[in-house]
């Protein structure tokens, strides 16, 4: 067990989030079978008061888990490499943690995504006092529990592994080995070159900006919007994540063939990973919010106007954050080109 202060802070945040979540879940489990919106009796009014309280509890859980996630990323990328022999960045720390380390990141990301979807539903429903989406809110908040359990379980397995004395390979060795086995080479050279990944990242970000702007302006909730948004988000995600590793990384690290996502977070590289991946997270969350808003607007005619407004807001946020992503990822490449007059390829 590691007693690193950041690890303890993560535990504290996780345990506090769990305590608050359990309070909310206990109420929700009593609300769901007793929900009778047409009734005026004491039980129904208790359910309404309790549901209102769970909205505040859910927000706190989201806030605490988001803080824990940021701390976990900071710990893995910058603080804990010094604890693990041989580790230079987060890749080494994740090696020491084993599969539970990556699983914690994945399950917590899914938990946060689920809680954000819940928050969007709460926001749309909160624009009207009648509470049309009360039951949906309750179910969504409860649906986050499996991911929370898995996340906390993985964390409990991952953090003790930080005290290992077995040396791990640094990221250069890991990616050289992986490249030797063929899959990195396949992605970078056989499938798309470094420059092609960069341009596809730029093009996808441009498309995402345009789509966000269009949605921000029109806020459509038509049938095709969900398909186009989801398809575009998927394409952008593939292009952005691979573009970062294979297209942008050479200009940030100033070295070819080092597609390590964790080195972006190092202070030696100005911790640009927090900007890059932070913006990816914002675009994903807001695109998801737009999808949820469109879906709510299509299923609940009475909330169509509020859903449309949220969809517009999500569109504008997607536009600005993908534009910022586009600019921030292009900056090191443009800087290199201006400074040296050529591309790294």
């Amino acid at each position, binding site marked *: 067990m590691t007693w690193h202060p950041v690890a303890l802070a993560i535990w504290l945040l996780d345990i506090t989030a769990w305590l608050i979540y359990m309070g909310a879940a206990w109420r929700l489990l009593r609300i769901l079978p007793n929900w009778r919106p047409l009734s005026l009796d004491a039980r129904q009014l208790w359910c309404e008061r309790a549901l209102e309280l769970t909205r505040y509890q859910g927000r706190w859980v989201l806030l605490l888990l988001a803080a824990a996630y940021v701390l976990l990323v900071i710990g893995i990328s910058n603080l804990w490499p010094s604890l693990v022999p041989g580790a230079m960045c987060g890749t080494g720390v994740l090696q020491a943690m084993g599969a539970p380390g990556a699983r914690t990141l994945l399950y917590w990301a899914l938990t946060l995504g689920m809680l954000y979807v819940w928050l969007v539903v709460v926001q749309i429903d909160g624009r009207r*006092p009648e509470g049309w989406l009360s039951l949906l809110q309750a179910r969504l908040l409860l649906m986050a529990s499996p991911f929370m359990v898995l996340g906390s379980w993985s964390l409990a397995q991952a953090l003790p592994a930080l005290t290992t004395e077995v040396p791990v390979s640094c990221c250069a060795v890991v990616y050289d080995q992986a490249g030797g086995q063929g899959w990195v080479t396949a992605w970078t050279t056989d499938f798309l070159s470094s420059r092609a990944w960069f341009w596809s990242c730029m093009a996808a970000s441009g498309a995402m900006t345009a789509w966000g702007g269009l949605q921000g302006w029109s806020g459509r909730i038509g049938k095709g919007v969900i398909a186009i948004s989801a398809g575009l988000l998927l394409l952008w995600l593939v292009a952005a994540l691979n573009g970062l590793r294979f297209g942008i990384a050479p200009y940030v690290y100033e070295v070819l063939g080092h597609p390590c996502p964790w080195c972006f977070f190092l202070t030696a590289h100005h911790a640009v990973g927090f900007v890059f991946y932070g913006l990816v997270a914002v675009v994903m969350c807001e695109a998801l919010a737009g999808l949820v808003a469109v879906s709510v607007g299509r299923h609940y005619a009475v909330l169509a106007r509020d859903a449309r407004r949220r969809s517009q807001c999500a569109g504008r946020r997607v536009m600005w954050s993908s534009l910022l992503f586009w600019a921030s990822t292009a900056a090191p490449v443009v800087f290199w080109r201006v400074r040296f007059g050529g591309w790294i390829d």
Partner: protein
Amino acid sequence: MHLSGLACHQLGFARPGRKPVIDMLQARFAPGQATLISAPTGTGKSTLLHLLGGLLRPTSGEVWADGQAVSRWPAPHRDRWRRQVGMVFQHLNLVPDLSVMDNVLLPCIPTASSYTALIHRAGALLKQLDLPAAGREPLQTLSGGERQRVAIVRALITRPRFLLMDEPTSFQDDDGTANLLILLAEAAADDACVVVCSHDVRLRDETRIFGQKLCLHPSSLEPDP
């Protein structure tokens, strides 16, 4: 239920583990009319006013305001609706460290009214209740009756749609009571829904202002004999 004014529908309120203070209460308070509710102490007059004003949530039943079940709204919506409510509390609830004028203007913070117009109205109301119109005095220098009149002006400053008063004449002499009755008549003429809870005989004997006089029982409001 699309009635204007305030209405209680099967309204109930009970503190945890205690018997209900109010139970299955049906009532309606029409706009443009002043209603006097009287009852012995401890029968739930203040609780009823707090339920009508959205400060307490019923444990059963509903409070309707202008055709909307406001008591079942979530807090953010209920808080916004409460801007239409002016309330005089039994224990006044003034801020002791602020001046008279600052206390009076407190409910105007969330409104977008012109400051000059507000100062002008506050001054006129203070003067009408025999208080200095400038309102620069610290609250601590005022007597109990004067403080109560400040609380009355604070309730009236926003021209509320629903005016709720809890024992507003408990510290007032006859002149103060007469001035208050004039203000109540003006508010009712302005189409406000006025509900006053009091066991002051001066109000119970008043025949021109109160269109409705009721006596509160735990589950009913009966006409006051």
